[in-house]
C-alpha cells in the first residue's frame, strides 16, 4: 500500500469511524430491543447520549483521571490509524494494549472501590483475550508471510481457508472485546449492585463522552480484524468480508441477548481453552502444511 492510500485510509477512518461506530451502536440497541420484544430507542440514540454527556456539568474525582482517559482515546485512534493505513498487525495489537492500559490506569487512579473492581476485571479480561489475539496475528503471518495488513488484504489467498479455527476463536474473544454478555464483566450496564458501572464509575460528562467515542473507534477496527479473514486480492472479497463483519456483529448481539453475565472464572477458563484448542491446533496444522 502506498502513502496516498494510507493517508486516504487514515482520513476516512478518522472521519467515518465515529459515525459508523455510533450508528452500529444504535442499530445494536435497536436490534437488542426487538429481540426482547421492545420497540427500542431511535437509531441515533448513541449520538444523543454523546451530545448529552458533553452538555453535563464538568466534574472529576482527581486532576489526572481525564488525562489518562484522553490518552485512551488518542491511542485507540492511533491504533485504528495504523490499521487503516495497512500497518503491522503486531504493532496494532501492542498499541491497542497501551490504549487499554490507559483506561485501566484511569480507573485505578480514582482509588474508588467500584472503579477498582472494574479495573481488575478489565485486566483479567485482557489477560483472557490477549493470547487469542496474538495467535490470530501469528496465523495471518503464517498464511501471508507478512504482518502487514496491506499485504494481507492484497494476498492471493483468503485467510479463512487456512484459519477457520483461529477465526472461531477470535469471534469468541470478540464477545469480551465488544463488552457483550456473557463476558461484560468490567463495565456492564446491568450489574448495578455489585459493579455500579465498574471501570467507568467515576467518569462523568465529557470524560464519559470521550470513552463512548473511543469505543466507537475501537469497535470499527475490531470488526476490521474480522474483515481481514475474508478480504484478499479478489474484487468481490471486500463485499463478502463486509457482509461477514455485519453477520458477526449480529451474532454477537444474539449472544449478548441470550446469555446472562457469567463469572470471571468462566471468562478466563473459556478464553484460554479456546485459545489452546482452536488457536493452537490451527497453528499446528499451519506449521505442518507449510
Amino acid at each position, binding site marked *: 500500500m502506498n502513502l496516498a492510500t494510507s493517508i486516504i485510509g487514515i482520513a476516512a477512518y478518522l472521519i467515518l469511524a465515529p459515525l459508523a461506530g455510533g450508528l452500529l451502536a444504535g442499530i445494536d440497541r435497536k436490534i437488542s430491543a426487538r429481540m426482547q420484544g421492545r420497540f427500542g430507542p431511535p437509531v441515533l440514540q448513541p449520538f444523543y447520549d454523546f451530545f448529552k454527556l458533553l452538555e453535563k456539568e464538568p*466534574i472529576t*474525582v482527581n*486532576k489526572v483521571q481525564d488525562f489518562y482517559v484522553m490518552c485512551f482515546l488518542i491511542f485507540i485512534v492511533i491504533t485504528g490509524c495504523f490499521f487503516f493505513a495497512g500497518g503491522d498487525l503486531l504493532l496494532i495489537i501492542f498499541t491497542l494494549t*497501551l490504549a487499554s492500559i490507559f483506561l485501566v490506569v484511569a480507573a485505578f487512579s480514582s482509588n474508588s472501590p467500584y472503579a477498582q473492581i472494574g479495573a*481488575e476485571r478489565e*485486566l483479567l479480561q485482557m489477560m483472557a483475550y490477549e493470547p487469542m489475539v496474538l495467535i490470530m496475528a501469528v496465523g495471518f503471518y503464517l498464511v501471508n508471510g507478512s504482518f502487514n495488513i496491506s499485504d494481507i488484504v492484497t494476498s492471493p489467498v483468503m485467510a479463512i481457508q487456512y484459519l477457520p479455527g483461529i477465526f472461531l476463536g477470535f469471534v469468541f474473544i470478540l464477545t469480551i472485546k465488544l463488552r457483550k454478555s456473557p463476558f461484560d464483566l468490567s463495565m456492564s450496564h446491568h450489574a448495578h449492585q455489585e459493579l455500579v458501572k465498574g471501570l467507568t464509575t467515576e467518569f462523568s460528562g465529557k470524560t464519559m463522552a470521550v470513552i463512548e467515542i473511543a469505543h466507537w473507534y475501537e469497535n470499527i477496527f475490531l470488526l476490521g480484524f474480522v474483515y481481514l479473514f475474508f478480504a484478499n486480492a479478489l474484487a468481490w472479497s471486500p463485499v463478502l468480508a463486509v457482509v461477514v463483519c455485519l453477520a458477526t456483529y449480529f451474532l454477537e448481539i444474539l449472544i449478548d441477548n441470550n446469555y446472562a453475565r457469567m463469572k470471571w472464572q468462566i471468562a478466563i477458563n473459556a478464553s484460554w481453552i479456546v485459545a489452546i484448542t482452536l488457536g493452537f491446533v490451527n497453528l499446528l496444522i499451519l506449521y505442518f502444511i507449510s
Partner: protein
Amino acid sequence: MSTIFFLILFPFVVALALLVLKTDAARDIIVKVASIVIAAASIYLTVQYFSSGGKYFEFESETISYLMMGIEVCLAIMIFYLGIKYKKYLASVLAAIQTPIMIWFELSIGHHIHIANNLYVDRLSIVMVLIIGIIGTLICWYSIGYMKDFQHHHHGEADRRPWFFFLMFLFLAAMFGIVVSNNLVWLYFFWEITTLCSFFLIGYTKTKEAINNSFKALIMNLFGGLGFVLAIVVLGKFYGTLELNQMLAMGMMGVSVVLPTALLAFAGITKAAQMPFNSWLLGAMVAPTPTSALLHSSTMVKAGVFLVVKLSPVLGWNIAGIMVMLVGGITFLMASFAAISQSNAKRVLAYSTVANLGLIVACGGIGTYAAVWAAIMLIIFHAVTKSLLFLCVGTAEHNIGSRDIEDMDGLFGRMPKLATFMIVGISGMFLAPLGMLISKWAAMKAFIDSGNVLLVMMIVFGSAATLFYWTKWLGKMVAIMAKRENIQQNVHKEEWLVLTSLTVLTVVICLVFPVMSSFLVVPYLETIYQSVAALALSSGNMYIMSAMLALVVLLPLLFYGKTNKRIVPIYMAGANLGDDLTFRNSMQQPTSVSLRNWYMEDYFAEKRMNIIGVIATVVVLVAAFSILLGGVL
C-alpha cells in the same frame, strides 16, 4: 588491552581499599571516585575498540594461570569449610568434586593446550562492559545512601559495610573478567568469583533465612560450575581447545560440539536462575536491595544469558538448542504466572527477572540472527529498567517501611517523584513503545520464524500474564489518595541522583534504540552470521515506535494534572464520609476503605507454578543429557 586489565584490576584494588578503610567519609569518596573512573574507563574501552568490531588478544602468562589455580584452591577450601561449619554438606561435596577435577585437568591436559587468545573484545562484550560499567557503578553509588539507612534500620548489629562494598567492587571486577575472557579456564575463574560474591552478599545479614538462602544459591551455582568444569574437560580432551571462539568456529564449520555446548549452556541456565534452579534467585531477595539490583537482575544473572547468547551460533535445532529453548520458554511462562500471585514487590521483580531471562535464554537457544538481536536488546533494556525498579523498591522500603505492593497504596501522594520513577520503570517493562516490549516483539517474531509452535504459545500466554501483574502494580502506583503526607524529602541525594539517571536512561535508550541497533547490535551479528536476514522490526516500525515514545513523553508534560473541573468525592454507594477513605457502615459507624489487588491464588499459586515448571524443565534437561551421553557412550 591495557584498558581491559585496568577494568579488571582497578575495581579489585578499590575493593581492597574499601575493605581496609572503615570510615563513612572515606568510603563515600572512594566509591564515588571509583564509580566515575570505572564508568569512564568502560566508555573509553567502547571508544577504543568500537570501530574494530572484534579483537582478540594474544596474551600468555603462566603466572596468571597458576595464580588463578591457587585462588581457586583457596576458594574451594573455604567453601568446603563453610559447608561443614553450617552443616550444608552438599556445598562441600560439590566443591570437593569440581575443584580437584579442574586442577587435575589443568595439570594433565590443559597444560599442553596452547591458548592463542586469552582475551577479546567484540561488540557484545562492549554492550556488557557498558552495562556493568555504567549501571553497575550507578548501583554502587546508590548503595552509599542506601547502606547508611540499612545500617540505621538494623541498629545494634555489627557494621559490615566494608565487607559489603568490598564484595560489590570485587564483583564488578569479576564481571568485567567474564565478558572479555576467551579462555574458558579464565572465564570459569571469574564465573566462580561471581558465584561467591553472590553467596556472601545473600548471606550478608547473617540471619538464619539469609544463610539458608545463600547456601541454596551457592549449591545451585556450584552445580552450574560443575557443568562448566565438565564442559572444559570435554573440550580439552576431545576437541583440543579451550578457547570459546575456536569452539564456536568448529561448531559453525560443522563439527559437532553439542555436548560441551549443552554443558556450558547448562552452566548458563543455572546462573541465569532458569527453572529448575529459579528458587535461588527468589531466595536471594533477602539480600540488601542494591545487591538484588546489581547481582540478581542487571549483571550477574546476565552472565548466564551472556554465555548462552555467545553460544547461540552453535545452538538452534540440535539437542542443546532445543534444551535451551524449552527451558527458557517454560521458565518464561511459569515465572510470569507465578509473579501474578506475589504481593512482595521484590519477589514480583524476581519472578519477572527470571521470566525475562527465560525469554533471553529461549532466544539464544533458537540462535537465529533475529532471535539473537532480540536477546541482546532484551539484555540491554532489562538491565536498565529492572535495576531502576529494584532501586525504587529499595528506596520505598526504607521510607514507608514495607516492600509489599499493597502498602504502596497512595505512594503517588507520599513520594510523587519516586512513584513517577516507578511508573516509568513498570511501563518500561511491558508497554509499547518502551524497550522491553520492542524486544519482546522481536523475540516473538523470531519464535514464530523458528517454527517452534510450543514456544509461540509460551510467549503468547506469558505475555498475557506479564500484562496482568505489571498493570495491577501500576494501578497501585497511580492511585490518587487523599490526605497523604509527602515524605520524600528523607531520601538521600545519592539515591535521587541514581534513580533520576536510570529513569532518564530508560527513556533515552528507547528513543535511541534504532541507532543502537544499527551501530552496535547489527554489526556484531554480521560478524557472526554470514547471511543477514531482514531484521525482526522493519526500520519503519522502529521509527513509529520512537515517534510514539516521543508522544508518550510529551503528552504528560503538556497536559498531566491540569484540570479546571470541579473535583468531587468518589462514589461509595452514597455512604462516602467525604474524605474518600472512609464510609458509613450499616451501624452508622465510619469504616475505612481498603482496596486490594487480585492475586488469583486458585490459578497461579506460586508453589504449583514452581512444581510444574521444575518438573517440566527437569524432564527436558534429563532427556537432553541422556540423549547426548547416549550418543557419546
